[in-house]
């Protein structure tokens, strides 16, 4: 079975902050990583390939630097990688991004399954996967933790709040991988060395026959009008003293504020 994995290169969010004084983003030394949930997507695809044979193609839309994420995916064991990179993609929101990726997937053509991460670490929207499925007119299963493929049917176990739901879909279909789906493998040095030798084609929006009006800022209905730091100007109060004193002070405060 042929699987396409859509990944995103994201800044390691742990390090991105807003400077509260200047209201600007501090991103010095923030490394770029593969979105962690996308690593689960890659691992799921590689495991399915090991069981059923076929090819795993990994794609991303991004600047030329996003090639690094694709190389890492190749090093993990993906067979092919394609970078969709075009100035016309800049500023794409989730609608435009899912449209562009769906056009690239149409160009690849031969696929049984598409796997995305549950959501991206930087945006946390979880919208691109379902968007792609809609543009391609195929069924979707979000929050997947387990998957079994038999012929042209797929059973997906989804992890929802308080329950597991198993759904059956006809292929081709799209899944979004939850963190609990698997434990992503590490790219070995052999993989790193082999990945270096692979060509990564770069596709423009023309090559994927995407309508420029539906790409980038032009094709994005949503606009970010402002960014600002979260309000964390809480009145933080330090409680001091021996453990018992502190504990009773705290309990009194919680009582006073009707929290307990």
């Amino acid at each position, binding site marked *: 079975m042929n699987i396409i994995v859509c990944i995103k290169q994201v*800044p390691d969010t742990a390090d991105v902050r807003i400077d509260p004084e*200047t209201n600007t*983003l501090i991103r010095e030394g923030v490394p770029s990583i593969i979105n962690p949930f996308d690593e689960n997507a890659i691992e799921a695809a590689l495991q399915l390939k090991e069981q059923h044979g076929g090819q795993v193609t990994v794609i991303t839309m991004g600047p030329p630097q996003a090639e690094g994420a694709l190389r890492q995916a190749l090093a993990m064991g993906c067979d092919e990688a394609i970078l969709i990179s075009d100035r016309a993609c800049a500023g794409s929101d989730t609608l435009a991004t899912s449209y562009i990726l769906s056009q690239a997937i149409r160009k690849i053509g031969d696929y049984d399954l598409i796997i995305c991460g549950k959501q991206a670490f930087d945006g946390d929207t979880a919208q*691109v996967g379902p968007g792609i499925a*809609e543009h391609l007119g195929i069924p979707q299963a979000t929050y997947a933790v387990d998957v079994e493929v038999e012929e042209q049917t797929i059973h997906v176990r989804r992890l929802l709040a308080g329950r597991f739901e198993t759904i059956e879909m006809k292929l081709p279909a799209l899944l979004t991988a939850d963190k609990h789906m698997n434990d992503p493998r590490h790219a070995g040095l052999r993989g790193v060395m082999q990945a270096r030798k692979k060509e990564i084609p770069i596709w423009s929006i023309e090559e994927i026959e995407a309508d420029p009006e539906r790409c980038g800022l032009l094709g994005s209905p949503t606009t970010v009008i402002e960014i*600002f730091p979260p309000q964390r100007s809480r009145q933080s109060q330090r409680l001091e003293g021996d453990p018992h004193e502190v504990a009773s002070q705290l309990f009194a405060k919680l009582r006073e504020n009707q929290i307990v």
Partner: protein
Amino acid sequence: MDIYIDVEKCTGCQLCVKACPYGAIEMAGDTASITGACTLCGACVSVCPVQAIIRELPAVEDIDNSDYRGVWVVAEVSDGQLAGVSLELLGKGRELADTLQAPLSAVLVGDDVAGLVVGAAESGADQVYLAEDPALAQYRTGPYTDVLSGLINQHKPEIVLLGATEQGRDLAPRVAARVKTGLTADCTGLEIDEQERLLIQTRPAFGGNIMARIITRNHRPQMATVRPRVMRRLEPVPGREAAVVKVPVAFDEKSILTRIVEIARDEGAEAVNLQDADIIVAGGRGLKKPENFGVIYELAEALGGVVGASRPTVDEGWIPPYHQVGQTGRTVQPKLYIACGISGAVQHLAGMSGADCVVAVNSDPNAAIFDIAHYGIVGDLFEIVPALTEIARQELAQD
């Protein structure tokens, strides 16, 4: 549309280099230069002290959206009841609709759900679109998308709100892609720009490090999913009524591409219902050993709360993953969150900073958790937590 730097004006101060979240600005000699990594987000434009960065946005066409009117809340049904988030959205939706002087509608989809109309009406809806069919008994992406997109195309609401639940986040992007409009995920704030009838949507990004305000200028409806437990529901008004619009639906089960084969209870998660908990006592790496979670359990029990955990403790296998709070775990909004031995990595803060009251116990006075704590206690958690447990037991026993 493009972005460029006016090199005549650029003073080489490098503020934009620092501000760019994508590392897309570099110094080329004495002036800044924008590389291909740019996503046109505009973070640099606002920091440039000399207005040397010019972002040319596509010309805003004046699109007439006046045929789109009204605020919709897509109700979610859980265990035969309207979900809490749907009631909260009706509360917020009422406020938005009043500001816009437009009606508030609830969209109720399912099988045999007409009984819930009353609840929607009492909680603020003027009108309820009711779509009932056996094929809609359980939520499935395909048929629900068909129903909701059909309704939107036919009745043209200006705003459509869904809960940022698993169902809402599965359905909304599918519908938005079909009706080709903008969607903002996981909002924590909604306001109206009355002049332009725009919905100003506030949401956290970068794991809660950054807040963004987002609008959907030209497309309708303006769609958003909204985080549960952020908006306030209204006191139900008994006897308040809503007009019911029955939506004719008839699905052929054979044409639906997905089938639900099994629903199994997730017993572990049920026992640890973090999302609905009022009190959470959470432990982190400061516990040092798995068996030390005992002190956390004891305090949680004394307070009638639920046990949470930071990611490292889960990764180390000290406690099952159901307990994990944070960006890759559960997002929680309890009344009280007691963080013990948790340093406060941003991924953790992203999952719990919505708590009404945060108490932090940590031996490191510089731990980031203290920045967001209402009450901070610097000290040995193995002394403080048991002391708190003892007091809680005594005090609460007297009640």
